[in-house]
């Protein structure tokens, strides 16, 4: 996305999707204020017509792309986000319905069509603001241009904890408020009364003086012909009726009775099922395969060779996977056979020793202030796998010159555009039908959607629809992992127990600088990135670089506190700005966890404080080590400042789950390599935390400081690993510097 900063700013300038770098939409947000911004600008009437034509039928009226009101009062909201399970669609509906004063029971929210008319303009605005770091600049850019950027980048992504804080605040609340004004204006004319005498509630415009009211449904047709106010005044939070309420999530009923339809569940007549194996060593190609053993299995119909993979097409999944297992394909290793977990760590060490950083940030003269005998510690973390519970599954049908694809991806529009590219068809002949997603955590982002290419290639050569299912084995072996990473942290202390200098040297493929927030104020600090790329595909893993950076910095802060002979909370306090949000979160978590009270025998308490996606989270963890050497987490106390919260219960669930995912990765998860290939095969050796290992007590508190809204899906993750490691140090005196902990427990 850095491309766009230097791009010709004329609306005709092509902005290539390739320019959307991962970090550009994973960095935290900014204060979001300024001009109203709707999906379709006035200057872009073709897109507006297209959007309207796609979603409205008889007796239905479209407002600002994202909203439809039917004459029988049903309010349908089109979400450009994928609800991966984080509850964002319910939150978005709350935000729009709040400003609209809609009757909640009549509100529905569905996925927006994966079409460019529904590109997410609010998100484009948020990313652009993120990039420049100067929202004021963004406010000067005409909305028509931003709409164009969003459409040209096929922007319909979900990631970076952006749904509510970008799309919600920058588009949906304004659409609700502006539509409400249009309905009131229509009512005022119809009742022949001044607008000022009208109020709204529960999808009605009310004229109290005459005791009359009009339903939104009976006003919608006429209101939809008015041009909407781009700068509607939003409600003061004191007037909220829906936002900040723990409304039940709209998607949950279908998820308890088995009726929710995920991509895995899609079926159409005549459909076949395929499964696939790609080169085990990433970068390798398919050399040869004898197809006969698969074709001998009842139900197997075809074996299809792709450049780097072999697929078996059958009447069902069982014959397909049985057929695939019967094959002995020969793959090349892409000359990566010498890559292993050990070789990557060795390469990191060599880079550190050489000392030539690829990027550096910070302030002060660190080298001088480190002195002759600094405190030093090296940390190492492994590749992490997303392990969403639903393995990849997409169905594609090529028929009568048109390609249709069904399934769940984090960016429906980009999915469609990739299928357009691979198939060579016109965009008008390709349709992606978004479905419910069984978890993602970054895995279904558009940068690593090889399954889209695969299923497109299969469908284009098959006379029937095909559902491509990745086995769990394939899914584990062909991930888009959080990178394996190392860090060497170095610091010196003054005789007053303060940090004089602090250096964080880290090695991994990409810089973490854009996303990492170091909250402490120090006289000299340096962050140096040493770039090392292996043959593995690496990607965004829930909360991205903040997980490993949070582990490095918050573990080392703990080491420094002990080196200084200071309490870990006091030591952190001494390096935080007075009256800062970070300090308040830290103080609150200390108070709520009983930090200064005795710890039950055998246990230790650890603290960690990490900001990510503009939300500050601190955990205090009470943990012990069992007789088997395995860590046991007894209690987690958490304090969150996300500025403000749209749905408290849903936000709570995200922090609970994020904390557990953080603990899971700290305790048991690792992808390791040998001869260039992943060694883990399934959930039997890629170990996720289970019920018995999860903390029995999670005590979570939200501060709601009123600061600009931060993300909620990701920020619970990063402080979990360091808080646990610090607790284990307090319990045992043994410092955890390598994850996962289980590997060390087993010796």
């Amino acid at each position: 996305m850095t491309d766009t900063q230097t791009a010709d700013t004329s609306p005709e300038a092509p902005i290539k999707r390739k320019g959307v770098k991962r970090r550009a939409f994973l960095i935290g947000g900014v204060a979001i204020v300024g001009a109203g911004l709707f999906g379709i600008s006035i200057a872009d009437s073709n897109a507006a017509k297209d959007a309207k034509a796609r979603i409205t039928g008889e007796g239905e009226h479209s407002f600002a792309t994202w909203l439809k009101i039917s004459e029988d009062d049903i309010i349908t909201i089109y979400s450009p986000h994928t609800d991966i399970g984080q509850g964002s669609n319910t939150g978005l509906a709350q935000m729009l319905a709040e400003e609209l004063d809609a009757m909640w029971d009549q509100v529905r929210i569905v996925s927006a069509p994966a079409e460019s008319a529904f590109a997410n303009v609010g998100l484009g605005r948020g990313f652009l603001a993120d990039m420049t770091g100067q929202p004021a600049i963004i406010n000067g850019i005409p909305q028509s241009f931003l709409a164009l950027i969003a459409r040209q980048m096929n922007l319909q992504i979900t990631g970076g904890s952006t749904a509510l804080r970008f799309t919600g605040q920058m588009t949906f609340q304004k659409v609700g408020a502006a539509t409400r004004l249009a309905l009131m204006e229509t009512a005022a004319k119809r009742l022949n009364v001044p607008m000022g005498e009208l109020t709204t509630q529960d999808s009605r415009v009310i004229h109290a003086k005459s005791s009359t009211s009009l339903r939104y449904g009976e006003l919608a047709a006429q209101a939809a012909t008015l041009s909407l106010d781009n700068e509607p005044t939003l409600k003061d939070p004191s007037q909220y009726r829906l936002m900040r309420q723990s409304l039940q999530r709209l998607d949950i009923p279908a998820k308890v009775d088995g009726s929710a339809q995920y991509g895995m569940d899609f079926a159409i007549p005549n459909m076949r099922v395929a499964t696939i194996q790609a080169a085990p060593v990433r970068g390798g190609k398919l050399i040869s395969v004898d197809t006969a053993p698969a074709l001998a299995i009842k139900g197997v119909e075809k074996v299809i060779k792709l450049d780097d993979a072999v697929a078996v097409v059958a009447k069902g999944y069982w014959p397909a996977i049985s057929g695939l297992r019967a094959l002995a394909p020969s793959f090349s290793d892409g000359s990566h056979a010498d890559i292993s977990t050990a070789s990557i760590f060795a390469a990191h060490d060599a880079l550190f020793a050489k000392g030539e950083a690829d990027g550096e940030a910070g302030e002060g003269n660190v080298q001088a202030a480190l002195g002759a005998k600094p405190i030093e510690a090296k940390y190492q973390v492994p590749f992490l796998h997303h392990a969403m519970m639903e393995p990849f599954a997409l169905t594609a049908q090529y028929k009568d010159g048109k390609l249709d694809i069904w399934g769940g991806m984090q960016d429906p529009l980009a999915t469609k555009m990739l299928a357009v590219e691979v198939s060579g068809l016109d965009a008008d002949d390709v349709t992606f039908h978004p479905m419910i997603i069984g978890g993602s955590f970054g895995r279904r982002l558009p940068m690593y959607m090889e399954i889209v290419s695969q299923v497109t290639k299969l469908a284009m050569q098959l006379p029937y629809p095909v559902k491509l299912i990745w086995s769990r084995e394939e899914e584990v072996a062909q991930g888009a992992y959080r990178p394996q990473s190392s860090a060497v942290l170095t610091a010196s202390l003054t005789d007053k127990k303060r940090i004089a200098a602090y250096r964080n040297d880290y090695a991994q493929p990409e810089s973490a600088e854009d996303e990492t927030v170091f909250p402490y104020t120090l006289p000299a600090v340096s962050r140096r990135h040493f770039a090392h790329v292996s043959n593995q595909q690496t990607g965004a893993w829930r909360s991205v670089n903040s997980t490993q950076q949070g582990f490095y910095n918050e573990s080392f802060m703990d080491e420094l506190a002990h080196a200084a002979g200071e309490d870990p909370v006091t030591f952190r306090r001494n390096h935080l700005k007075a009256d800062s949000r970070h300090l308040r979160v830290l103080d609150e978590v200390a108070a709520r966890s009983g930090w200064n009270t005795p710890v039950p025998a055998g246990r230790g308490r650890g603290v960690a404080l990490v900001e990510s996606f503009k939300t500050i989270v601190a955990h205090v963890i009470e943990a012990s080590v069992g007789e088997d050497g395995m860590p046991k987490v007894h209690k987690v106390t958490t304090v969150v400042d996300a500025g403000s919260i749209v749905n408290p219960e849903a936000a709570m669930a995200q922090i609970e789950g994020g904390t557990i995912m953080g603990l899971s990765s700290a305790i048991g998860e690792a992808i390791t390599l040998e001869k260039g290939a992943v060694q883990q095969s399934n959930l039997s050796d890629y170990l996720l935390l289970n019920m018995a290992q999860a903390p029995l007590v999670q005590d979570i508190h939200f501060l709601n400081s009123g600061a600009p809204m931060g993300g909620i899906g990701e920020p619970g993750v990063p402080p979990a690993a360091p808080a646990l490691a610090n607790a284990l140090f307090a319990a045992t005196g043994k410092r955890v510097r390598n994850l996962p902990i289980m590997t060390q427990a087993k010796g």
Partner: protein
Amino acid sequence: MAIQTSINGKAVALSAEPDTPLLWVIREELGLTGTKFGCGIAACGACTVHVDGEPARSCSLPVSEVAGKSITTIEGLKSADGTLHAVQQAWIAAQVPQCGYCQSGQIMAAVALIEKTGRPSDAQIDAAMTNLCRCGTYPRIRKAIRAATGQAAQAVEGAV
């Protein structure tokens, strides 16, 4: 030869190959997609159904082994008038699901646990509820099981 069995109270004759895991028969032959494929090796529990009232991981159970047995899937938990099972209702009240993909299996495991124990303790929950959830809904699953069995929602450390 067709395999005779009963699914959600209805007698069915299954035409699948005998080695086909029950999961794929349920999903592809019967079209009941509430039972999920997660790992294929009985590690995650997303495919949990009841076979003669006992929880079973259907991805690793050849259909030949369920001949003559009674199978219940998530679709069969509702009562005849469509009322959700008390455990399903507790799941909604506790707002358990996030992505929801593992929840059919979680609910089937929980129903079996409750039918066996009445009021499961936290230790019994830990022992029986081995289904994996990547979203981390474990605290809410525990809360829902406790609520469905008339126990205080919040687990208390040290209680048995």
